[in-house]
């Protein structure tokens, strides 16, 4: 699969979301896609899935079977989990969804209406519908968001299996869930430009890190402090050689 000089904008005269992206994806690749919010990651995933056409440039060699798990599964549908997955199975020509439901620990959810699912449970339905047809291209948008610990553990091995079977896996992921896999390619979208091999963004939980001793095991800590003391605190930590940034404001 190849992207050649791909650019994309939603409407004429609007700024480009993706600028001149070139990339080659080979069977067995696992790609972690990062970038700040609004950088164009989801747009790039939609282009790869064939849901949007490049404004200029081409995307060629897309595998015939694509699985796409969105970051927010659309729960506003009048089906139970079982009824929905049965319909999707028929659309996929009779693909088996039951093994995926078992593997993603969805047994207790099968009779629940989609509209009553929690975010994580709905996310599992999205994963099951993407995985059921043995996709040659598996696209996962924030696949670890909201998942329980068991499923977070099993998801990297599922991605590895898809890749081992000759599939391409690309996941937009801020949480570094796939980094344990060997030979993961890192893509990042910066100002609309697709870059490969650049440093991965710090994970959401990372508050600071000691870069001077990269070989030493790292630890992530969270510090809660008054808003007014934030900037002096960050400056002090950075002055001491740690990477530190604000995660969220509470209260």
């Amino acid at each position, binding site marked *: 699969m190849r992207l050649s000089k791909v650019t994309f904008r939603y409407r004429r005269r609007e700024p480009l979301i993706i600028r001149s992206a070139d990339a080659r994806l080979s069977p067995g690749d696992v790609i972690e896609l990062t970038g700040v919010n609004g950088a164009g990651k989801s747009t790039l995933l939609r282009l790869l899935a064939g849901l949007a056409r490049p404004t200029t440039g081409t995307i060629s060699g897309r595998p015939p079977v694509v699985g796409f798990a969105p970051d927010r599964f659309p729960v506003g549908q009048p089906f139970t989990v079982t009824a929905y997955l049965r319909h999707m199975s028929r659309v996929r020509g009779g693909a088996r969804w039951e093994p995926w439901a078992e593997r993603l620990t969805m047994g207790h959810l099968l009779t629940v209406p989609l509209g009553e699912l929690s975010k994580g449970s709905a996310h599992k339905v*999205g994963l099951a519908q993407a995985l059921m047809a043995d996709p040659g291209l598996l696209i996962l948008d924030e696949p670890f968001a909201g998942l329980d610990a068991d499923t977070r553990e099993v998801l990297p091995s599922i991605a590895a299996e898809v890749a081992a079977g000759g599939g391409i896996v690309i996941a937009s992921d801020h949480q570094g869930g796939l980094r344990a896999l060997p030979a993961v390619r890192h893509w990042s979208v910066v100002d609309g430009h697709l870059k490969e091999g650049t440093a991965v963004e710090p994970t959401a939980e990372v508050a600071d890190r000691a870069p001077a001793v990269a070989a030493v095991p790292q630890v992530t800590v969270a510090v809660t402090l008054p808003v007014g003391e934030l900037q002096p605190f960050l400056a002090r930590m950075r002055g001491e050689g740690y990477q530190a940034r604000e995660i969220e404001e509470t209260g």
Partner: protein
Amino acid sequence: MIALTAFRLAGYVRSHRVYQALLLTLAMLAILYGSRAPRGAEVSVLADGAVLIIPILAWAARSLLDTEPDLQRELSAVQVGGRGREVAAGLVAAFAACAVLSALGLGWALLLGVSQAPPTGVLITILLLHALATLTGTTLGALTSRAVLASPAVSIMALVLGFMAMLLLSASPLYWLTVPVIRWMRAANTGLLLDQLPQLAALSLLWCLIGLAVYVWRRR
């Protein structure tokens, strides 16, 4: 694509949106065929029914196409292997839903709206007219669905005004600029429906195909 069509229809029924169009259809039929038409007026009454059901069919088609969340439409496109098949499945589902309502209207009219069954030739003509009405309703519904007109208020206005414009234009000398529904009724009233059917059907089909092409173009 058939499985996706069934999925769209199942969503429409299970969401209970189907009852909106069904109740409107039953209310219209109860009013229109409250008393049987006299002998000899069968063609006229049945043609009127085919025209008057069009806005309800458009409502049904729009409602069916809007049942599915936008993101599910994207998932469906990936699942079925392309946007084109997803669009086609939606249109086929909308046409099927409209065809059921149209068949209900025609069946009601034949059983309770006329004093005697029309001859076979006339019946076939009326069947064709209902098929054209079904296609017209599907097209108008598709063109006013959320994928084309995002605002619900604009969408509803476009549906109602679109049908009114169809009536006004087709009553004027510029009838060839739209589906000529008033010409259907006039031809039926004057006993010329069989003679004029080829021309009226071709014109109606042409405008429906243009409308569907616009819908497909907007969804590409």
